[in-house]
């Protein structure tokens, strides 16, 4: 049953050190506010799952939240590398990171299998690909009807799924639209789910076959306007492409990164405060270089 609580309460109550946590959002609706709150509360030893770890996971990894990363594409979309992600993998900074790497098709199937209560997924994949040599979780299986050999991959079943959505109603039913990624599957595969939303309305007034998460599959709904920025929320605000570009400079150097995180995330009370701190930084023309 969804509780309508603050993001601080939700992260404090529902995410524990050592948990397997999937913050999902495929370019769209990335749960930045929730990620910041995880960093702010100094969660540790998380196994982080995400198809497309981007800036928010770069921040979480760089701030020492993660012990393991399950992922299928790690980059700054349209910009280049994720420097904190690379530094963790290439140089063990700030700590060694166990890499559990898969393909998109694998993780998409693995979330769907998790949501379906199955221990594994079957797919056509990984033929001629070197990942199975390095990831023992990727196996194969023979079709009992045709004899074809297919890939078998373990389900993703996180302790906690974290997503951002456009709307919830006062009971905690959640509506999202546009590029919906694997968010529904992530929530249904997880034991607990935290959803931040742009607004809470009396009634969702959703189209008949819209993507809805009923209140009884969600643990907490938290009102966090702009909670996906610098990602975007269709119908609310666009992608802050400049921030993605700026991140390349902010994150390249460990000290610059730490200073930025300390100033804007660790020293702010919540996401609204973080947004105010960015406006202040911009107006003073702070150089990130």
């Amino acid at each position, binding site marked *: 049953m969804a509780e309508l609580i603050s993001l601080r309460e939700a992260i404090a109550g529902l995410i524990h050190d050592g948990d397997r946590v999937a913050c999902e959002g*495929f370019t769209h609706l990335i749960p930045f506010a929730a990620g910041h709150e995880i960093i702010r509360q100094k969660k540790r030893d998380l196994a982080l799952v995400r198809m497309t770890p981007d800036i928010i996971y770069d921040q979480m990894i760089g701030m020492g939240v993660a012990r393991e990363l399950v992922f299928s594409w790690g980059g700054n979309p*349209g910009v280049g*590398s994720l420097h904190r992600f690379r530094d963790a993998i290439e140089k063990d900074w700030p700590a060694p990171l166990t890499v559990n790497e898969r393909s*998109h098709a694998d993780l*998409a199937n693995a979330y769907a299998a998790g949501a379906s209560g199955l221990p594994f997924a079957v797919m056509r994949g990984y033929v001629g690909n070197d990942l199975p040599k390095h990831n023992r979780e990727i196996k194969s299986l023979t079709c009992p009807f045709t004899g074809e050999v297919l890939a078998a991959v373990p389900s993703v079943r996180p302790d906690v799924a974290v997503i951002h959505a456009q709307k919830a109603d006062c009971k905690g039913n959640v509506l999202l639209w546009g590029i919906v990624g694997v968010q529904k599957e992530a929530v249904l595969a997880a034991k607990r789910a935290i959803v931040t939303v742009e607004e809470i309305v009396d009634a969702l007034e959703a189209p008949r076959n819209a993507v809805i998460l009923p209140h009884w599959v969600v643990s907490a709904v938290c009102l966090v306007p702009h909670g996906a920025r610098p990602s975007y929320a269709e119908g609310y605000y666009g992608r802050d*492409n*400049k921030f993605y570009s700026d991140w390349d400079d902010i994150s390249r150097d460990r000290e610059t990164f730490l200073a930025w995180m300390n100033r804007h995330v660790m020293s702010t009370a919540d996401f609204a405060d973080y947004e105010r701190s960015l406006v202040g930084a911009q107006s003073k023309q702070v150089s990130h270089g």
Partner: protein
Amino acid sequence: MAEPNYSADEMMTIAAARLLKNNMVCFVGIGLPSAASNLARLTHAPDIVLIYESGTIGTKPDVLPLSIGDGELSATADTVVSVPEMFRYWLQGGRIDIGFLGAAQIDRFANINTTVIGPYAKPKVRLPGAGGAPEIAGSAGEVFIVLRQGARTFVETLDFITSAGHLDGGDARKRAGLKGKGPSVVITDLGVLKPHPETRELELVALHPGNTKEQAIAVTGWKLRIANTLETTPPPTQAELETLRALHARTARAHGNAAA
């Protein structure tokens, strides 16, 4: 010879766009494939169906997406499906004619590396990884690849195979059970390569105007084979160039500094 009025990247994008036909269903990678696919749509292939792995089907962006899931892709799509559905029903389901990929590195059999430079466990350079590419390379009817040709991209041996091309050549794909035909063409800033019908080793089949086979051989990390008949790519038409430049200009304006 006068300096051409177009860049090598423009020629590459235009040459790639020309390979796409109207009514093809094309699964588009971000970056160069996306630019070429949309140029095709805005010129000779208005009814081409463009699909991005973010779930956007039949999308018609007015500006190029910076990410694989830009709002522009969603807003202009015929429909938007979930990512599991995209990979299960549309790609693995065999509904894609062309998978259009970029690459960090390629070998002579058009196998692709986008994972690591150096050893996997302790990479020299950690690249973004697989994304959707391995299964696009496996399941799409055929695969087009576009990348700049150079010593760091056209390598003798890949440190890691992320997406299968023709594996070790010949009928290796078929024997491995892959459904799609694999890479049928590689478009670079120098020219065009196609797999030899039997060995499946890439051969240079065309050069863009002003380039020489010696240039191509020099920047290729293996002993590059040259087709018996080496074509010359027709230079960009004025319409192609104007459409591509207008697309890039709109894109830069829309994305602000990020794409400037």
